[in-house]
C-alpha cells in the first residue's frame, strides 16, 4: 500500500517517469501474462477455446461488464465506490423495457438516450448525497442499492418483460452486426476509447486522478473536488443506464432481479485490472484486461467441463490469486527499486 501512497502521485505519470508509472505498466504486464498462461493452459485442455467464434462469444459476454467496470473505475479512482450500479441497471432496464413494450414503434436510438438519461438522474442522486450530503460513498451507494432495487419491485409489481413483448429492432440493438462486429462490442469499444481520452487527455479527467491521489492538494490546486466527485457518480449512472438498455436487449427481458450482484463483478474487474481501491491509480487498458480475464475464466471453466456449480468458487479463487500475485509483484518491484 505504501507504494501507492498518494504522495508519489499521478503528476509524475504525466511526465512518464517515476516509480509509479513503471509500476502501472508492470501491473498490466502482470495481468497480461496471467491471461496468456490461462489461454495456453485452457487451449491445451480444450482446443476449441482458441477459436474466433469462441472469442466473439467472450467479447459479447464482457461488453456490458467492461462498460460498467470503466465507470466503476472512475469512481474508485476518486477513492469512492459505487455499489448501486447493479440496481441502477435493474431499474433502468425495467423502465425502458416497459416503455418499449408500450411503444413498440419507438426508434431504438431513442431508447438508448432514454436509458442514459434515466441512469444519469439515478447516478446524480448518488452524487448529490455523496458530495453535498457528505455521506461516505460506500454507505450512500449501499443505501441506493436497496432503494433502487426496491423501486424495481415497486415499479413492476413483481411482473417482468418477456422476449416476445419486445420489438425485434430493440433486440437487435445489442446483437446486430451491421459493422461486422456485434453492436454491443462496438459500443463497448467506443466507450473505452472515450473514457481513455477523457481520463488521460482532458483537464477534468486529470482532475479525477488528482482528487483521488490527494484530495487536499487537489483542492489547494484549485480543483473543485465536489464537482469532480459529483461528476464521476453521474457518469457511473449514465454508463449504467447505457448498460441497462444493452442488457435488456441482449437478454431480451427485464426482470426484477436483472443484474443482481453485478456490482461486485464490476469492482472485481477494476481491482483485478490494477485499480487501487485507495484511489488515484487505474488505467483503462488495465480494466479492460481485468474484464477480459473475468470473461475468459467464465468461458474456459465451461469449456474444460468444470461442473457449473464449482465455477463461482473457481472464479472467486482466481480473483484472489490475481490480486495476491499482483501484490507480490508490486512488493518485488519495490524491493528491487529500493
Amino acid at each position: 500500500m505504501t507504494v501507492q501512497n498518494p504522495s508519489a502521485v499521478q503528476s509524475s505519470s504525466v511526465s512518464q517517469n517515476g516509480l509509479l508509472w513503471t509500476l502501472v505498466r508492470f501491473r498490466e504486464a502482470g495481468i497480461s501474462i496471467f491471461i496468456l498462461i490461462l489461454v495456453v493452459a485452457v487451449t491445451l485442455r480444450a482446443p476449441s477455446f482458441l477459436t474466433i467464434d469462441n472469442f466473439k462469444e467472450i467479447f459479447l459476454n464482457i461488453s456490458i461488464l467492461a462498460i460498467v467496470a470503466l465507470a466503476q473505475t472512475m469512481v474508485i479512482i476518486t477513492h469512492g465506490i459505487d455499489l448501486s450500479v447493479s440496481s441502477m441497471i435493474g431499474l433502468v432496464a425495467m423502465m425502458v423495457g416497459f416503455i418499449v413494450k408500450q411503444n413498440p414503434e419507438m426508434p431504438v436510438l431513442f431508447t438508448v438516450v432514454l436509458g442514459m438519461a434515466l441512469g444519469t438522474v439515478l447516478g446524480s442522486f448518488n452524487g448529490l448525497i455523496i458530495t453535498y450530503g457528505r455521506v461516505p460513498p460506500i454507505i450512500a451507494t449501499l443505501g441506493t442499492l436497496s432503494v433502487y432495487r426496491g423501486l424495481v419491485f415497486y415499479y413492476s409489481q413483481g411482473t417482468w418483460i418477456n422476449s416476445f413483448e419486445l420489438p425485434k429492432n430493440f433486440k437487435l440493438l445489442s446483437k446486430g452486426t451491421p459493422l461486422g462486429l456485434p453492436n454491443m462490442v462496438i459500443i463497448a469499444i467506443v466507450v473505452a476509447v472515450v473514457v481513455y481520452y477523457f481520463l488521460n487527455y482532458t483537464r477534468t479527467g486529470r482532475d479525477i486522478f488528482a482528487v483521488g491521489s490527494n484530495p487536499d492538494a487537489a483542492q489547494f490546486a484549485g480543483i473543485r473536488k465536489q464537482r469532480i466527485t459529483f461528476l464521476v457518480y453521474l457518469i457511473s449512472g449514465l454508463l449504467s443506464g447505457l448498460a441497462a438498455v444493452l442488457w435488456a436487449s441482449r437478454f431480451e427481458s427485464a426482470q426484477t432481479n436483472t443484474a443482481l450482484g453485478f456490482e461486485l463483478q464490476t469492482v472485481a474487474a477494476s481491482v483485478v485490472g490494477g485499480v487501487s481501491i485507495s484511489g488515484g491509480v487505474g488505467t483503462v487498458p488495465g480494466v479492460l484486461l481485468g474484464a477480459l480475464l473475468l470473461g475468459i475464466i467464465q468461458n474456459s471453466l465451461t469449456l474444460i467441463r468444470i461442473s457449473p456449480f464449482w465455477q463461482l468458487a473457481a472464479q472467486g479463487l482466481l480473483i484472489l490469486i490475481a490480486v495476491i500475485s499482483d501484490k507480490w509483484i508490486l512488493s518485488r518491484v519495490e524491493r528491487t527499486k529500493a
Partner: protein
Amino acid sequence: MKAQAVTDLKSTTLISEYPPRRSFLSKFQRWEWMLVGLILLDVFINTRLSPFFLDARNLARTSSDFMEIGLMMLPMVFIIITGNIDLSVASNMGMSASFTGLLHNLGVNIWVAALAGVLLGTLGGFLNGYLVARVKLPALVVTLGTYAFFRGIAYGFLGDQAARGYPKEFTYFGQGKVFGTLVPFSVALFIVMAIVFGLVLHRTTFGRYLYSIGNNENATLYSGVPVARIKFVIYTLSGFMAALAGLILAARFGSTRPDIGTGLELSVITAVVLGGVDINGGKGTMLGAALSLLLIGLMRFGMGLLNIQGQVQGIVIGLLLILSILLPGVAQQISSLRNIRVQGQSILISVGVLAVFIAFLLFFFWSRAPVIAGG
C-alpha cells in the same frame, strides 16, 4: 487501507472531507437516544396501523428472523470500528451451512457435521484474516474475492440439491424456545453473545485497541500494539460467527440450499452503520448496533404486517440508512452556511436539480400507470 488512513487523517486536519459529527451528535446527547426515539416512534405508528403489532407471540416469533443478522453483526462492529470491512460473511454462512448439510446428507452424525461446518467457517475467516493482516491486501478487495469464493464452494457442495430432514434436536437451535418462555433460543443466544461482545469492546484493552486501530493504524502500530494479530483475530471471529449464524438459519428453515442467506451481508453492514458505527473506523458502540438491529427488525415486521413486499421494504431501510448520515451532516452544513450570502447561481442550480428529480418521479409514475393497470 494504511494509505487511506493517512489521507483521512490529513483531510480532517486540513479541509474536512466528512466533517466530524460528534459535535452535532452531542446535541442529541448520543446517537443511541436518537435510535431509541425512532424505535418508540415506529412502535407508536405501527400499533396505530395494525392491531397485531404488539402481540408478544408475534414479536417473539419474528425476532428470530433477525438473529442471524445479529450474530454476524457483532464481529462486524469490531471489524468496522478498525476501519475495515467483511463482505464475505453471508457467503461464509452459506458455505458452512452447506457443508453441514452435505455431511448430513452423507449420513454423518448431525453434531459432527455441525462442528465441521463451524470449523470450515472459522477457517474461512482465518483466510480473510491472513490476507488482510499478513499479506496486507485491502479488506474490501479480499472479502470481495472470498465473497465469490465461499459462495461458490457452497454451490460446489450442494449443487442443485438441498439438505433436509434435520433431527429435532438440531432444529431446536432455530425453531425452539428457551423452555417455559416465549423467547426463541436464537434470541437468547444473541443476547448473551451481544453482552459478551459489548463487554469485550467497551471494557477490555482489546476493545480499546480496536478503536485505536480505527483512529490511526500507524500510530497504534508504533505504540507496540500487535495490529496484524488483532485483525487476524477479528476476521477469524467473524468467520466463526458467520458459521454459527449459518447453522441457526439452516435449523430455522429446516433445510439448506447453497444460496442460503444470499445478500445478508448488506443487511449486516446496514445495521452496523445505522447503529452509529463510523464506516471510516474509530467510532461506535455495541449498544447502538443492537438498537439499530431492533429498529430495523421492528420496521420490517411492521411493514410486513401491512403487506408490503420485502423488496419494497428495502426502499425504506435504504433511505433510513442514507438519512441517518445525511441529516446530521446537512444540519451542520446549514448552520455553517448561515453567515455566507446565498448566491443567485446556487439557487438556480438547486431549483434545476429539484426540477430534474421531480421530472424523473413524474415519469416514473406516469410510465408505471399501464403496469398497474395490467397492460
